């Protein structure tokens, strides 16, 4: 999958900061892997990243690779831009993807290569990676 396949926005879009808590996520994404936090004790997945498992409290955490397949749980089509970087991009979609292999985890993301009117709840999707900089790849999704 080339970077262009996952491209969604222009270069002025805000960029994620790599921070200690999220470093494994962004590091894996740069290598074309989608990883999700998983409690080493109870096996519960969690996303967005959090510092501990809410059930087990302080506990070891694994970053488990997802196969990156899932379905659209819900979506919106943004037609009114609220940031300069999206003004030339609207209409665009924002979706929550429920991964097939990570419990009830929802991933906020976009579906690329798809007209806004073609996005629907239940749509099967697979992960692609949008290399927005040397340090950052953003997991987005394409129709499966």
């Amino acid at each position: 999958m080339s970077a262009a396949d996952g491209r969604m926005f222009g270069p002025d879009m805000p960029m994620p900061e790599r921070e200690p808590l999220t470093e494994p996520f962004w590091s894996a994404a740069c290598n074309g892997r989608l990883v999700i936090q998983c409690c080493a004790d109870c096996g519960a997945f969690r996303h967005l990243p959090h510092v501990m498992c809410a059930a087990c409290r302080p506990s070891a955490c694994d970053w488990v690779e997802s196969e990156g397949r899932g379905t659209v749980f819900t979506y919106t089509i943004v037609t009114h831009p609220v940031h300069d970087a999206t003004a030339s991009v609207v209409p665009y979609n924002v979706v929550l993807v429920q991964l097939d292999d990570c419990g009830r985890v929802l991933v906020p993301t976009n579906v690329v290569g798809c007209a806004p009117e073609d996005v629907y709840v239940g749509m099967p999707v697979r992960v692609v990676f949008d290399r927005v900089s040397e340090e950052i790849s953003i997991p987005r999704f394409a129709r499966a």
Partner: protein
Amino acid sequence: MGMWPLRDRTSIVGIGETEYWKAGGATRTEFELACQAVMRAVEDAGLSLADVDGLSVYSGERSDPTDVAQTLGLRDLRYVSLYPGGGNSACAVVHHAAIAVAAGTADVVVCYRSICQGQFGRFGRARVGTGTARAAVGRTVGGRNAFTMPIGLMSAAQNYALEARRHMYEFGTRSEHFGMVSVACYANAQRNPRAVMYGRPLTLEDHQRSRMIADPYRLFDCCQESDGACAVVVTTTERARDLRRRPVLIAGAAEGLPAGDGGDRFRRPLELWTSAGLAGVARDLYDRAGIGPADIDVAQIYENFTGQVLMAIEDFGFCARGEGGPFAEGGTLQWPHGDLPINTAGGNLAEAYIHGLSLVNEGVRQLRGESTSQVDGAGHCLVVAGPSAPPSSALILRRAA
């Protein structure tokens, strides 16, 4: 648990507000408006500023209580409370005021909210942080924003649209159902000269023709961006009996955060994606007030967005879960003939967006018999703050005997 010890023991005795404007229209600073609203509410109560010894405000309130107290020359303050969040706080600040006066910690507590989006930035633009800490989005974003801003999820409308779409998918709710909330609010605003949308009627066709903002939400599904301030005075019902206005009893007050919900909304239990997250608050509130949904004569339900109003109506038991759309059909939400007239001053959609405190003021007016869309013989008014914006809150106000 026994009976809630605060039932009817505290009252709202005064309300005040400034003129309301579309964002950018205010002729004075946000801080001056805060002071004006407080003064008007205290005057309405027949009290003097020297009687005020407590302030209860939203954590995002820019008109800091210490500055308001100093500027207005208040006496020694004995109680100051900040409730976390924004529009979710509208009833919680009253709840905290009631707790304080019932406990004897303070005698007279004023809740206020001032908000001039024309002076401090509009909520409908991308931003990071909340309240006084809100700021423009930088070139890079950290924390949770690292997962939302770079995918273009940047505004409240977009976030709440995700819930509305899921509600449509699960229950067959339609855009027209959302529009029925707007139509009810706008109709009420046509009778309320304070309303920013006074003289601007809205039909369901107008709603359906309005431009899409974040599908499924159209322009008229979104609350306004406004300038203005309002305030509410709370004291004990015992003291209230001696004051100028007939007291409006705080029959019940409740607030809460559903288990598993929090700042990371993506992690909450899946069923909360189609709910206002207020089921627990509703249960506590009815229990505390000693009444049920059938006893509610009129409701003020915070419209961040119209779909969340329908979800709140479900959470508060006016219809079954998922039935909010069909419930709104046939004019149910419209004054004067609907079974559940809502937002009788026009609400956040059509009166003004003062982060919901204006809805408390309107609830008080209903029970004083002073609304411009007065429900005949209204005895109980439900006020709901910030649906799907936990920790949220609600009140049941009762007409004094």
